[in-house]
């Protein structure tokens, strides 16, 4: 059954779509850890918050302003949602994360762990327990004797665009180069007279913004609901560990690996799909703990 080209294609498409969401989430996580040495457990919860906010904006424009459930409205909602979450991310960094830079690792982890509970309940308070999604009337596309959801192409394109944008940002812009330098040695960057705190805030906010952006993009495909963040954060960790902290390329490759392996596992051994991912994580942590593309130095 796996050899049927239509099935393989559809599976790969689904796997790549999953890979994109993992990448979009994990890139922020990886960057934050690479630059600031903080592992933000609450990253996926902030993603979820972004999704809910984008949903509300969408509903307000579509129903409240009567413009209907269209793709354009979704784009507007995504832009606004991302902007709002960037500000939220900046705020969290300034108020909470900043205090934790010189703390022990367990305390950093516990702080962000507490954030998961707090933000999760805040979402529940405001939006209730119903799950939220957006319905764009999409017609399935017929390819290779099978039907696929054309929105998957949108997702893959978006993911690649963000990846390319991040790469360009880090390699070609001045700010990006400073960020990369900070990954290697923040003391030196500070010694060069560059204001480290601003860089930290910026990187954190960027990570959150990317996450919120991805949540909005996924709304038509995946309902936002309480508890989705917890599933995702565990898979995100898997991706960051496999790819290597601080490496965007590593995160991208690992996301694709995890996404595709998971999708294929579903066809071959559905019960064990998640177990397979964990086994890969365990193998990586034992054989090459700094990940495929991470630097041994950072380990």
């Amino acid at each position, binding site marked *: *059954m796996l050899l*049927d080209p*239509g*099935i393989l294609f*559809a*599976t790969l*498409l*689904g*796997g790549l*779509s*999953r890979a994109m969401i993992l990448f979009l989430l994990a890139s922020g996580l990886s960057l934050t850890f690479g630059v600031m040495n903080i592992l933000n457990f609450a990253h996926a919860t902030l993603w979820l918050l972004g999704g809910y906010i984008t949903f509300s904006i969408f509903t307000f424009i579509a129903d409240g302003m009567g413009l209907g*459930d269209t793709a354009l409205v979704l784009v507007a909602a995504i832009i606004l949602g991302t902007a709002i979450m960037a500000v939220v991310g900046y705020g969290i960094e300034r108020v909470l994360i900043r205090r934790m830079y010189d703390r022990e690792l367990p305390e950093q982890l516990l702080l962000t762990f507490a954030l998961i509970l707090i933000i999760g309940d805040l979402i*529940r*308070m405001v939006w*209730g*327990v*119903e*799950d939220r*999604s957006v*319905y764009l009337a*999409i*017609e*399935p596309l*017929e390819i290779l004797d*099978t*039907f*696929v*959801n054309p*929105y*998957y192409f949108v997702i893959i394109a978006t993911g690649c665009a963000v990846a390319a944008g991040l790469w360009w940002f880090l390699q070609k812009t001045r700010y990006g180069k400073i960020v990369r330098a900070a990954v290697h040695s923040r003391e030196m960057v500070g010694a060069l007279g560059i204001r480290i705190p601003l860089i930290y805030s910026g990187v954190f906010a960027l990570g959150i913004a990317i996450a919120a952006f991805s949540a909005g993009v996924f709304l*038509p*495909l*995946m*309902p936002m*609901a*309480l*508890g*989705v963040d917890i*599933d995702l954060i565990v898979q995100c960790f898997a991706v960051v560990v496999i790819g290597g902290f601080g490496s965007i390329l590593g995160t991208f490759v690992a996301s694709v690996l995890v996404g595709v392996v998971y*999708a*294929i596992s*579903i*066809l071959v051994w*559905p*019960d064990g799909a*998640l177990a397979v991912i964990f086994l890969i994580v365990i193998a990586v942590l034992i054989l090459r703990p700094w990940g495929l593309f991470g630097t041994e130095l950072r380990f």
Partner: protein
Amino acid sequence: MSGKRPHISDSKWDSVLKSMDRRNFILSTVAAGALTMTPRFIRADAHTPYKLGLLLPVTGTGANYADGGIKAVMNAAADINANGGLLGKHPIEVSYRDTHTKPDVAAREVRDVISREGVQTVVGTYSSACAMAIQEIIHERKILHLAATSNSSKIVNENYTPYTYQFCPNSKMQSGSVVVAVVEMIKKNGWKTYVTIGQDYEWGRDTQKGFVNALAAKSPDTELKNDLWFKLGETEFSSYITAIMAAKPDFAYGAIAGKDNRTFILQAQAMGLFKRVAYPGGLISVTEMQQQKKSLPRGMIGLARCPFFAHLDQPLMQKYIKMHRAKHGEDAYPTDWACMHYDAIYGLEQAVNRVGSIETEAVKGALKGATLETCRGQATFRECNNQLNIPAGYVGKVVDSPDYPFPIYDLETMIIVKAEDVWTPTCDDVRKLQKVRA
């Protein structure tokens, strides 16, 4: 820490109830400061209140179903208390606990409401695993248990306790009723093969097994090609949908409930699954009809447990509809889960009235084999396992309706399956399944 909890005065409760149509119900009650209720009339000779425990989740995959149940229980209790409570003198006090859809939390919370609050009856839960966990404890402590959403057949069969009364058609009944409809469709369309997909947990497995067995009995030539299972909370169904289409079956059966149902239908629709493969009999309750009113594929054949529009001629159904809309808004027609929970509370009231006492053993005796008025008509509890013989399932085609802001089943073609046609055939068979408790 004193056992007393702040009670809300009735004027405050009124404003709380009125505001519920615009705000999250739980938020309102929290804002009001408590989740217990006071009697409407506080008489000089205050009688003992009747304490009720409500165990439903506000978190987890079933929260959107449980929401209706919580509202229903609160509304029904308030209504009964408007006349002084049970027997006119025992105001109902509801203690709510969130089970988080976790069995050990449910076990702890039920112990809490029994020993701390002193409840005599527990209503709940959503998940069958939670229900079975609390059955241990309510049996041991001799507390009545009214089930109105959790519906694994194990609750009334394998895990039976004489203290549990089931107001919801159990999973075997539900699968059986789908089979009745599907067998007709098989004959009409000449279907030969099928595939199943289900949530990989107790209810999903139980439901799927019930369907497969019942179908094999009635239509042995129809071949099951593959069974797919996904974990609860799955967000990405493309691989499964692809696998279904790959098997090229004539139809597919889904044992999916809660949030996953919505995700699956959304993604399957966008992938054109329903154009290629028939998908009859998945759970489409009033909740799905309301929440997915924009996107639910019209023409899809689904199964409901207690849809209000199937019993508009019943006075109790009219009463529930009126109560629900008055408190929660014009569009807030009670969902299946709300209706069944209303039935549980009013059923309790009927038993209490019949025996003239609120004492647990007496009420339990009154419920045994009793015939009650429900929103689905008159129904009787089965002697051997306390399963109410309300309709086992409602199978219908999703269509738009001029009367409601959401789609319902086409009333012309809807099939209502009787309990006796599809539940465990005889009481002897039931007793073989039941593991008698020590």
